[in-house]
Each structure stands twice: as structure tokens, then as C-alpha cells.
């Protein structure tokens, strides 16, 4: 049966057909839907882990006991998981272990454009790259075969365009995989120097064996057409090349690490000029150049952004001029009714320096809230705020905060909070607890007390946790602007680390109220300072876009003329 599947759904299907039984992941665009889709197969026990390192360690433990296991994450999540991964490359696996990493060329939803293919090389972990949903499913099955035959974790690398494209997939049956027996073997699983030195030798041998076998792997294939031009490519770029340069000969790589050296040499020998067309870094080009083969690529494509049919055409003088209109941009915004808007407004009124983090609230950096001074990576806000205090002194921390979301705090904020407490900091942390992992599309987390199947589980009590660690902590409803402002003033004044848990659910997971009404607007413009997409400037005042307004009532708290009137139901709903 054929089904149209999102690339990410096809990965999950591939894991299912490969007989996977354990999946542990942390959400991150563009990888999130893999694990969401995996959770719809009852044969696979899935979970949202607290972070990618924990996810890989959990999948590793499952593999060690003989199960086929998968862990999925976005490219920057691979950095978090790098510690177990680099050593898992030494120990190898028992049941197959596949790490799916989703890169984001052009940064549709990311803070950098790093290329995970370099991590495959750095860690000596083989990497497969599918070009469409069918290949995504098929390569998952191959990935488990490679993992078990070569005793190694395997990366399946996708990019945003693969993850979030839908294309037809021929479904197959689930393999009946018997879990491998676990035998205690400290020379394999206990990586102390004496054992690790021996395993490192094995890593090199394994990789050489796979490199030779790659020459006869059907996933690496040569399509000979016009011999004047040969292109080496892999992943979704293959389809761009086929369409932009239909006459070019192509070496399509399915295994992009290690490379099939003999196949590449033969191909290079048959074509007049050899190109590598690849997104981001010139990883394959460098590997081929290191074989002593003359090749071009990055001097044409550059290191940045996504490729496309049009971009490849224009590199070879086949493009046409595109005239795009000069129109106002539409950057993403905090949603109408978002509780972060109220928090940022309170912080703005107090003119605070704000160290930000990764989540929807990163959008608070934009006009008109201008609410952030920094955003670096998951969990960085607290460390940055404490580092700033070390430079500028404790007085500085009277007018600075770290803001961090509930899921991000659980992911990697807790160690930095302990660090600030332990080392005598006096910073203030605003924990923006919107009761869900929102930006990636509403995944469950330990702070809400529900697991991936929406089954009730233990709920982390943030106030109690922070107090136990040694901070002063309190909970506030940020939708009450006055209460939030008071809490900020009091906690900023406190000589020690304090945490304000600003608790209010994401506007997209609670019912809307009736829209706010406008009566007697005096055109002062104060409500426009919060940047709510539902509040529009109109002739002589403002008007509310009823199709967007959630009736959250934050604007009506700010209006000095009481011209913005809440629907009466507000109190009952929250």
C-alpha cells in the first residue's frame, strides 16, 4: 500500500518496520514529528526525554540490553548529545542504535546553520542521507542493518526540506526482530583508558571495512548521462540537481560517511569535470579533494542557506531573473493572548537587561517589546546572567534577569541555576512556565505532569525544586501585570538567587474568550507598545481584530482610560 507521508513520518515508519522497540528524543524543529509519529505505533515505547543527552543515553541503554533503539533530535541537539555519542562510537552497540539528526539549512527555525555531517566525521559514526520519504523509510531499515553488522551507532541525517516534505511511501511489514542477548563485557562497555584504547583500534578497522563495502552498496549509485559534467550529491539536493541539470551524470550518495572511494574515483575518471553540490559545509568536496581528485563545489555554492533548483540553475548560467516585490516583512510574533507578552511588558517597564533562552519567548526580542539582550542556546540564560554579574557586580543584577521556559529549564537550566546558587550569585530568574513545550508544536514535558501519550505522570514542582536547590522561589500569574511587576521588583532586590515562576498556559492550549471591546479610545497608543497582532492602529485610535483577539485582557490592564473592555467570562476561565 502506498501512503503519502511527511519525511518525519516516514522515518518513524522505517523505525517501526525495522523492529525498533525503544524511542527517546527531545523535541526540536525540524525533527519533532518523528517521535510524535513513532508514538502512534504501540509496538514502540516512546518518550520525550528531558534533553538530547538523556535521550541518547536512554536509547543506548536499550540497545545495550539488545533492543533496536532510536533517538531523534535537531542539529544543535546533537551537540548536547555529543558526549555519549563520541564514546558510543567506541563501545558500539548490541541491538541496533540509530540517531536521527535534522539539520536546518537557511535556519527556518534555528539559531545556527551547523552541518552534522562534520560530527559524523569527528565521531567516526557512519551517516546515511535520504532524498525523499520513500528513501527515509528504507534507509532506516538499512541503518539498523549497518548498526548491527558493523557494531556502531548510525546517524540518519535529514534536513528541513526532507523532514517537512510529503511524498508517497510504499509501506512494508514490521520485521520480527528477536532482541539480542546481553552479555556482560567490560572490555566493550566500560570505557576506561585501557579498554578504550583497544576499542579505538576497532573503530578504525570498522570504518575501513565499511568504506570498502560502501562501493557496492546500492544506496550509492552512478547515473551516467552526458559525460561532460559529473555531479556528486546526496539527500534532497539530489532532486534539485536532477531537475536543474537533467543531462548531468550523477553520483548519488546514500551513505555520506564514510564515502565510497573507489566508486568516486571511477566516476571522476569518466566525466570531464567533477562537481560536488552540497548544502552548508564543503564536507564531501574536502573528502574527495583529499583523495587527490580535482573537484569544484563550494567556490560556486557558498556555505550558506539552502540550495534549490533555481539556485543551482543560476550557478551554471541557466537561471532567470526574478523580480520580487518590495513589501513589508511579516516576521513571526508572539501569538495574541501569549503570556510571555505580559512578562516582557513588565520587564520592559522596569528597564531590565534580559538574558534570553530558546523558545517562543525568543520572539520577545523583536519590536516593539525589544525584550531580550541575548539568546544563545538551550539553557544559556542563567549562566549568562551569572557571568554578567561577575563582570558588572551584584548591583547590576538588581536590574537584570534571566528568562527561560519550562521545558528549556528542565533541559539544561537546572545545572546553571545550581552553579549560580553554589557560587554565591544574586541573579533573578524568570521561569516562563507556559505549561507545555510550545515552540516545537506543543509537546509534553516533566513540568506539566503528562508524558508523550498524555498519560499522567509525576509533575515537577518548580517552586519546590528551586527552593530545594537553595534559591528563593515564588509563583506568579504573569497575565496579572501588576502582580508580575511587584514580584520582579521584590525578587530583584533580594540578595541571593531568586526564581519567579511565571505560570500561565500557552494561549494555543486554552479556550479563547470573547474579544476585547473598544469604548472611548483616546488614542494614547499605550496598548500598541505590547505588540499584540490583534491590536491595530486605526483612524483616531485603535481597533481590535476580532478574528485574532483571545480576550486575554492584558491590554485592558494597561489602558489608562479604561477604553478596552474585557469579556466578563475572564475570571472563570483561567
Amino acid at each position: 500500500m502506498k501512503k503519502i507521508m511527511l519525511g518525519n513520518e516516514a522515518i518513524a515508519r522505517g523505525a517501526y518496520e525495522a523492529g525498533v522497540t525503544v524511542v527517546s528524543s527531545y523535541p526540536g524543529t525540524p525533527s519533532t514529528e518523528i517521535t510524535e509519529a513513532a508514538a502512534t505505533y504501540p509496538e514502540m515505547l516512546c518518550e520525550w526525554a528531558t534533553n538530547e543527552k538523556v535521550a541518547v543515553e536512554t536509547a543506548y541503554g536499550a540497545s545495550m540490553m539488545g533492543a533496536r533503539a532510536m533517538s531523534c533530535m535537531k542539529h544543535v541537539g546533537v551537540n548536547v548529545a555529543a558526549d555519549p555519542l563520541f564514546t558510543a562510537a567506541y563501545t558500539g552497540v548490541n541491538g541496533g542504535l540509530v540517531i536521527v539528526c535534522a539539520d536546518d539549512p537557511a535556519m527556518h527555525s534555528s539559531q545556527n546553520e551547523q552541518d552534522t555531517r562534520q560530527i559524523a566525521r569527528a565521531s567516526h559514526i557512519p551517516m546515511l542521507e535520504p532524498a525523499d520519504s520513500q528513501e527515509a523509510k528504507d534507509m532506516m531499515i538499512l541503518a539498523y542493518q549497518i548498526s548491527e553488522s558493523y557494531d556502531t551507532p548510525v546517524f540518519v541525517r535529514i534536513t528541513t526540506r526532507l523532514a517537512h516534505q510529503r511524498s508517497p511511501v510504499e509501506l512494508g511489514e514490521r520485521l520480527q526482530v528477536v532482541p539480542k542477548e546481553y552479555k556482560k563485557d567490560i572490555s566493550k562497555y566500560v570505557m576506561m583508558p585501557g579498554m578504550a584504547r583497544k576499542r579505538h583500534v576497532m573503530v578504525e578497522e570498522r570504518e575501513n571495512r565499511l568504506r570498502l563495502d560502501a562501493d557496492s552498496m546500492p544506496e550509492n549509485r552512478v547515473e551516467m548521462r552526458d559525460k561532460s559534467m559529473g555531479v556528486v550529491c546526496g539527500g534532497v539536493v539530489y532532486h534539485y540537481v536532477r531537475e536543474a541539470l537533467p543531462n548531468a551524470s550523477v553520483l548519488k550518495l546514500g551513505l555520506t560517511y564514510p564515502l565510497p572511494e573507489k566508486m568516486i574515483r571511477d566516476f571522476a575518471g569518466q566525466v570531464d569535470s567533477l562537481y560536488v553540490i552540497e548544502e552548508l559545509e564543503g564536507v564531501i568536496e574536502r573528502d574527495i579533494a583529499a583523495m587527490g581528485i580535482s573537484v569544484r563545489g563550494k567556490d560556486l555554492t557558498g556555505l550558506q542557506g539552502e540550495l534549490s533548483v533555481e539556485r543551482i540553475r543560476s550557478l551554471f548560467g541557466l537561471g532567470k531573473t526574478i523580480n520580487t516585490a518590495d513589501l513589508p516583512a511579516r516576521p513571526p510574533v508572539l501569538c495574541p493572548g501569549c503570556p510571555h507578552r505580559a512578562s516582557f511588558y513588565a520587564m520592559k517597564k522596569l528597564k531590565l537587561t534580559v538574558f534570553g533562552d530558546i523558545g517562543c519567548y525568543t520572539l520577545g526580542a523583536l519590536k516593539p517589546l525589544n525584550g531580550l539582550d541575548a539568546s544563545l542556546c538551550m539553557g544559556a540564560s542563567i549562566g549568562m546572567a551569572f557571568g554578567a554579574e561577575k563582570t558588572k557586580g551584584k548591583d547590576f543584577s538588581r536590574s537584570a534577569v534571566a528568562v527561560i521556559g519550562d521545558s528549556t529549564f528542565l533541559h539544561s537550566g537546572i545545572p546553571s541555576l545550581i552553579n549560580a546558587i553554589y557560587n554565591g550569585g544574586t541573579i533573578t530568574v524568570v521561569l516562563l512556565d507556559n505549561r507545555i513545550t510550545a515552540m516545537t508544536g506543543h509537546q509534553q514535558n516533566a513540568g506539566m505532569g503528562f508524558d508523550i501519550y498524555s498519560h499522567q505522570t509525576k509533575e515537577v514542582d518548580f517552586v519546590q525544586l528551586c527552593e530545594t536547590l537553595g534559591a528563593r522561589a515564588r509563583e506568579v500569574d504573569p497575565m496579572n501585570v501588576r502582580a508580575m511587576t511587584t514580584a520582579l521588583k521584590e525578587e530583584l532586590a533580594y540578595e541571593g538567587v531568586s526564581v519567579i515562576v511565571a505560570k500561565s498556559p500557552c494561549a494555543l492550549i486554552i479556550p479563547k474568550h470573547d474579544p476585547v471591546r473598544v469604548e472611548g479610545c483616546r488614542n494614547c497608543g499605550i496598548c500598541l507598545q505590547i505588540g499584540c497582532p490583534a491590536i491595530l492602529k486605526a483612524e483616531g485610535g485603535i481597533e481590535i481584530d476580532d478574528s485574532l483577539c483571545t480576550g486575554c485582557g492584558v491590554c485592558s490592564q494597561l489602558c489608562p482610560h479604561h477604553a478596552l473592555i474585557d469579556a466578563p467570562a475572564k475570571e472563570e476561565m483561567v
Partner: protein
Amino acid sequence: MKYNIVIVGVGGQGTLLASKILGGIALSQGLDVKVSEIHGMAQRGGSVITHVRMGDEVFAPLVSPGEADYILAFEWLEALRSEYFLKEDGLLIANTQRIMPMPVILGDAPYPEQEAAVKCLCMDAYHMACEAGSARSVNMVLLGVLSKFLPFEQEVWEETIEKIVPPKTLDTNYRAFRAGRDIAHKQGANV
């Protein structure tokens, strides 16, 4: 047969459901198909664009500029922004609804007043959707319009819609879809 369709709108407007239905229709007709979506940050009220390509063999998941047969635009500014995707004899099918982007709300830029520079069939799909029973069914109105131009029977569309939308919203979605077909029928003569 080969169709390139670009769907544009504002994050949260339901563009993904429209592309999912188009993908389902192509598959049901035995065509190769690729749909490219944008998830993540842009869905928070930013510009979103989805590409749908169907035909005997489809390579790239993205439509190249100047190669779209149809654009379905859920919002007027996004309609104008997407015009460069349309091929010379292509058709822009646009909802005239305006959703103000932040630069306009802040007074940094005016909302553009210009007409479409391409062949356009436009309608107030937002109000049509509200009349059909839900503001969320703008996507069905626009698909209804598009359905008059693609060579698939009404039953094929409605069967695919039934498979994809939640059952309790089916009647509303059908009403919106048929309203779209009706307006395409009435206005189509002018295109």
C-alpha cells in the same frame, strides 16, 4: 499532467491542511507528488509558504519562481509577496482578508494598497468561511475555487476531504468547499 501549486498565508491560518488534501488527491489519482511545508517558528504568525507538485515524476519538493500554475493565497499581502512564483498564464487565487504584519501595526510601513500584477481571482474567503460555519475553513473555500480548475471530479475532492478533516467539522468544511466552487463558477468567466 503536471501541476505546481504554491500556498501562502500567515502562520496559523490552516495552509498545511490544504496542502495535505492536495497531496492526498494526487496520490488517489496515481500521480507522483511532493509537498513541502514550513513548520516551527514561522507558524507563530509569520509568512508561511507550502509547495505542492504533482505529475508523472516529481523531483524537487519546491516550486521554482515563475513555474507555479496556481497560487492559493490565504491573505492579501502574502498574495502580493508570492506573485513571482506564478508562471505567465498562471492564476492567483486569493483571499482578500488583510492581517496586519508587525511593521504595519507599528507604523514602520504601510499595508500595500496595490492590485495584483498577475491574473487573479479574489474573494472574501474569510467571510465566506464564517458563513459556512467556521472562520477556520478559509482553506476549504480556496480549495473549492481551485477544484474548478484542476481535472479531478468533485467526488474525488470531497472523499479526500472526508479522509483528512475531523469528522465533526465535515459539514462545515463541505459547505465552505462548495461555496468556493460556486464563486469560482460565477467569477471564473472573468478570468
